[in-house]
């Protein structure tokens, strides 16, 4: 990706961040006010820790690939420029 473009990894970080906030929030609310009908293994409060995990990963990716910073290039080697052969 060119440095002046927003990296795909930033979009992914944004998605994980927003989802993490929403899921953690819902999990905490459910923990405080347990519903009458509960999912299996409700006692583990999976939405709290899973949401928190997504949130942390989302924060890292948003910070690491923020639009003003250079997107990291994960590939190897030199780029070969050419036009398609019809």
């Amino acid at each position, binding site marked *: *990706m060119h440095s002046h473009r927003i990296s795909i990894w930033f979009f992914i970080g944004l998605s994980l961040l927003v989802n993490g906030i929403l899921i953690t929030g819902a999990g905490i609310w459910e923990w405080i006010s347990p519903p009458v009908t509960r999912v299996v293994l409700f006692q583990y409060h999976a939405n709290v820790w899973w949401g928190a995990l997504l949130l942390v990963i989302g924060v890292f990716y948003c910070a690491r690939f923020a639009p003003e910073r250079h997107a990291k290039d994960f590939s*190897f080697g030199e780029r070969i420029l050419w036009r398609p052969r019809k």
Partner: protein
Amino acid sequence: MMPALAMFVTDRLVHLSPVDVVIVAFYFALVIAIGFYLKGQANTSEDFFMAGREMTAWVAGLSFLSANLGALELMGWAAASYQYGILATHWYWIGAVPAMLFLALVMMPFYYISRTHSVPGYLKLRFGEPSRTLSAVSFACMTVLMSGINMYSMALVMKVVLGWDIHFSIWVSSLTVAIYVVLGGLRSAIFNEVLQFILIWAGAALIPILGLVETGGWSNLKAQITHNTSNEYLHMWSTLGSFNNNPMGVHWTGIAFGLGVVLAFGYWTTDFLVVQRVLAAKDLRAAKMAPIIGAGFKMMVPFIVILPGLLGLAVLPVKLTGETAAVASGGHSYNEVLPLMLARYCGPGLLGLGVTALIAGFMSGMAGNVSAFTTVWTYDIYEALIHQDAPDAHYVKVGRWTTVLGVLISVGTAYLVMQFASIMDYVQALFSFFIAPLFGTVVLGMLWKRATNAGGFWGLLAGTLSSVGMWAWVKVDPTALRYVALSPNARDMAENMYRALWSCLLCFVVTIAVSYMTKPRPESELNGLVYGATAIPHESEVPLYQRPVFWAVVVATVFVILNISFW
């Protein structure tokens, strides 16, 4: 008739809370926003159809895998694992990994150095215009059918899980895909596929984790499955000595050769839907690394697809059945196992993410089909046969309209697919029609200098027609199964694998025979197209850990260990 009645069922497995609805809505908003953001970067045909050929190995590799993570991967294979047990894992391991590594190390240099824009484009360079036309037309037909299957699957899930009207689901998903592919072209499709890949894992990985917690670990899960069904559901190879000893009714030769060689190599090395993502890589080494990265992740996908199906065998209080029986009895079908597991473990928030993962899977598959269809139609049919030498902007415009047309045809196909009881078997039939013979033609073209234009064309045509012919033969006379699949007890999947094997072998035989009867092309014309006539760049100056062959060996080693572990 019965599946059609299911359209009007409004019962639902789960009720989304407001936070779930927000998560699903945010996903739709984000993918459309990405499309609008990338609109300004899709002005030339190179940008629109090939994503500017600037994708890194990781982006191309994840997109390569995500384009395949459609409805079949998530819902269909979870259903297959419930129905057939751990045998379904073959489609992820031997049915993918060796072929992906072969694509990376052997075939990718020719695709990349030949500077083609598509697989039919390679056939044009290697075997001439008739082969390209035949391949392009068959690929276009298969692709829109596949896209329709994706739409139908997604709409089915929305009906079962959320109670949404099936028509509403089809149109909402198709319009969303149309918007972001029309705006940003292949780059938009690839960006969204990588996003969808991450969301699929984020939304689906919790089901096997919690499932293993509930069952008390892998050993207890195996004991419960054995108690509820039989031990045959838990072995990948040891039950394949006879057609009658395993739930799938398949012999090991069908898995090893029909699936592992013909279908897998055909799909992963010549289906332009996936190959297109790798062709968008920024250099040859990235193009070789992308399928290897994809193979590494492919080996892990059974964790989120196969394992939930197996867990369903152990923990679900109801017994799932085929689609027709489920509709007749008011029960649940195999295809509902993943949504049922989702509803079992996921509360508010997680449910929204899980539903988003399903939608993301369906949309990535659909977008992959539509963008590949657009490229093949525009480059290999429209430009080649209808309107040559037009300005670049004209082809971009045609590409955008073709995207809309492809989506509309896919919608029509989705309604056709509703008439078929088994989604998976139908798709496997399509693969054997078009993909298996194509692999024979392409691999001979790349590895055998003596193959001629006439040999390539007649081999491809003979393979395709023979596959359709065998399928029709069994439909008209079911006893023909003993000849096509070597056993009257073979199930649909086994039949598809053997049909693919025979059609590919026929393609080989006809191509070789006709080639020896016709005049070969001069070697100078084969530069960049065939092994032995092409100078392939060496990587001796690159450190070992950066070489594709090193990582291919690592992936292959893990692949062997996994197969032995679940023998």
